[in-house]
């Protein structure tokens, strides 16, 4: 289609210009700030600062919490996706309604609301007390942050997994069963592999925001649990060291590189 390349380029040119100025150049700016100091001299000190104990600790903790959150999201979302996909009665409209709707309540408000729910004398403990159950202490602990992450990013896992499950042709499943595979085998060897693209996209959409959040950890961690996102945010808003902040951000850009490699590899597979 549009075999006329001139026309195609003209049509795409607004996007090309936009992407160049507002995606690529700004990334260049981060690299430039990250690898220079106040005097403008080139240095790797800022990026290397990630190895300082307090930065490294924040990074490792962020990775740990992000991995836990991603795994929980996956474990919650996959069965849900299967239930939704199986009962075709639930039209896609209803699904979106249920899981997109909370996003219209501001993300910060929703997270803030967890504070009221989780506090030592909060709503949940209030219920527990009423039924004479032991209360839980979660607020201002890493667990509270994980709850916040799972809550906020779960829809990003459900969507792609549901979509890829819904796309599976029932005949494929039936064929597997006809050929003698039991339910577990069918799941492991047919369903699961067919949803890998959905899983990958879900994992990316959960892991990266979880790794780099600073708002969730501030609100539910009582400002005493520092994640790498908090460290970077403070370099820009508090200590005002833009070079160090950029240097630490460069480390986070590694995920772009990883994604590009994965992308390139899958393109190659397509061509085969």
């Amino acid at each position, binding site marked *: *289609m*549009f075999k006329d*390349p001139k026309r*195609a*380029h003209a049509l*795409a040119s*607004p*996007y090309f210009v*936009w*992407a160049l100025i*507002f*995606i690529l150049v700004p990334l260049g*700016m*981060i690299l430039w*700030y990250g690898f220079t100091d106040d005097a403008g001299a080139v240095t790797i000190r800022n990026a290397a600062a990630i190895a300082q104990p*307090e930065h490294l600790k924040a990074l490792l903790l962020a990775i740990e919490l992000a991995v836990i959150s991603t795994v929980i999201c996956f474990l919650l979302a996959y069965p*849900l996706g299967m*239930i939704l996909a199986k*009962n075709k009665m639930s*039209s896609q*409209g*209803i699904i979106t*309604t249920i*899981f*997109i*709707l*909370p996003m*219209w*309540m*501001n*993300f910060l408000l929703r997270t803030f*609301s967890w504070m*009221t*729910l989780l506090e030592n*004398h*909060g709503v949940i403990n209030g219920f527990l007390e009423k039924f004479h159950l032991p209360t839980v*202490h979660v*607020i201002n602990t890493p667990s509270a942050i994980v709850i916040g992450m799972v*809550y906020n990013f*779960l829809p990003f896992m459900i969507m792609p997994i549901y979509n890829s499950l819904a796309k599976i042709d029932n005949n494929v499943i039936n064929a597997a069963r006809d050929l003698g595979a039991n339910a577990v085998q069918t799941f492991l060897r047919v369903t699961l592999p067919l949803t890998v693209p959905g899983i990958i996209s879900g994992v990316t*959409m959960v892991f*990266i*925001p979880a790794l*780099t959040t600073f708002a969730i950890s501030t*609100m539910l961690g*009582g*400002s*005493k649990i*520092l994640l790498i996102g908090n460290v*970077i945010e403070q370099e*820009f808003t*508090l*200590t*005002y060291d833009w070079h160090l902040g950029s240097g630490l*951000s460069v480390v986070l850009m590694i*995920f*772009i590189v990883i994604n*590009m490699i994965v*992308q*390139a590899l899958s393109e190659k597979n397509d061509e085969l």
Partner: protein
Amino acid sequence: MNSKTRTFEKIYMGIIFLFMYAPIVTLIVLSFNKSKSRAKWGGFTFQWYLSLVRDSEVLNALANTLIIALIATVVSTIIGTAASVALMGMKRRTRSLVMGVTNIPMINADIVTGISLMLLFKVLHFEAGFVTVLIAHITFDIPYVMLSVLPRMKTISPSVYEAALDLGAKPLFAFRKTILPDLMPSVISGALMAFTMSIDDFIITYFTKGSGFDTLSTKIYSEVKRGIRPEIYALSAIIFVVVLILLLVSNRIKAGAGKRVKKSLSARGERIKNIALAAGVVAFSALIVVMALVYGGVFSKKSTQVFVYNFGEYIDPDVITMFEEETGIEVVYDEFESNEIMYAKIASDGAAYDVMCPSDYMIAKMISQDMLMKLDKSALPNAVEYIGGQYYNSAKAFDPENEYAVPYCWGTVGILYNKKMVQEPVTSWDILWDDRYSGEILMQDSIRDAFMVALMRRGYSMNSTDPGEINSAAEDLIEQAPLVQAYVIDQVRDKMIGNEAALGVIYSGEAIYTKRENPDLEYVVPDEGSNVWIDGWVISRDAVNVDNALAWIDFMCRPEIALKNFEYITYSTPNIAAQELIEDDDIRNSSVAFPDNETLERCDTFISLGEEADRLYNEAWKRVKSAN
């Protein structure tokens, strides 16, 4: 299917549903809470819904959010759709390269995207505000449109389009008639996704917005640290219900249209669906535009303005309205949580505030860096007449000639404790290191205040610049860290009211309010001494609206205005005439609001410590915060 699995499935979905909606129900309940504190149920009320209509700050933020989201969605949908269509005509290699770039804003951490754009705008000397936020939103919206449109585009066969061309149709006409109808559902779902992401974005907006511009997200974030004003709960409850109705209605229409398609097997159903969707979008857009026209900060700029930057929850909002009505000057009002954050904002070129209200040591720092303007006293008759001489005297510690600042509020820092949880008398900062209260202690999340506690406890000066003293204070704070429940600023209030903690470091001004809400609370200034602070109005050297800024300051010094503010924020006023106007004897004679000389003698004022010491404190603070 057996009924056991069915039941299990229902229960499972129910649990996830509960998880998704529990916080939302909580918010809706809070919107009917009579108490301003989220920690206490004060009875049922509709008052926040009524006061929401008059809350111009919140409505402005809402209008901004909607306008940005709407424009960003339209622009990104056009650019993204055009690019998706065009990409199909390009070589495979080009296409995958372009998709690689397109994926960047989605794969990249929001914080990095936000910072990278902020750096770009700064280098280009773009003034941060509406336009920069809009650009940022378009940038992260485009990928959502393309990722929705492109896969659909791949499935559309070009042959009909080519046939149309062969039959003599112009390319645009042929496109509209053959490809667009097939493409439309994916364009709409891409646009909806973009709109949703734009509405919900916080991080990128946070880094690209400038002074005086807020979306709902950034407005809420600035309020989170001190407790959110109930009007925001009311607003989100309304938004939630409106969107719920819109989605249900559009689902109903879609389902109806879907059935018709099956029946007639014609394109009519599809067309009805599109019309319905379009109608929905148009109606919603109209609503947004009306909102914008009525409340928007974008189109209805008054001719003369003043940009005010103040601590959060540090003024009676009615006072702003009164000032605007009386003078015809539009107030662009922004809030900060700590002096350090304010300083970072002012020191960057982006923020152009006329009049600010920092604390003593920060005023000194700003004077020394030539960031402030000398005040024209002849334009400040109220300030000269009504602010007590003793306060001007105290202010000489940071403003030696009283040239730059007019005192606005003052007070002490002390320990707020819950008498039910702490039986012993509280006399010393030591109690904050007592492991019997592990997990029951709230510390201030601001560098100078936290270090003040540790330094005074050891008998050092709170203005110490000695690396050894700072270091040992830092060691103490690290030792204390495991006992601390949270480092918070104004959240101490709600948490203490809700019995969440036994002890909290707090400003005296909050003590009156918290005691009113929870009679078990008591405030003391420890024997080792503490900080007595003054916050004052200052004018930026780069102020554009100097006359308006002076009018603002003088307005704040009118006795009846100062009284109104005092009654609202309960921070002590240095306005002598206002002090005499206080009707409640208990408060007028309160040792918390107006401490006696004996207490004040134990206290000291912060001074600016210079860059080298600031750096020491910053580094030490980072160590403390990562000690957990």
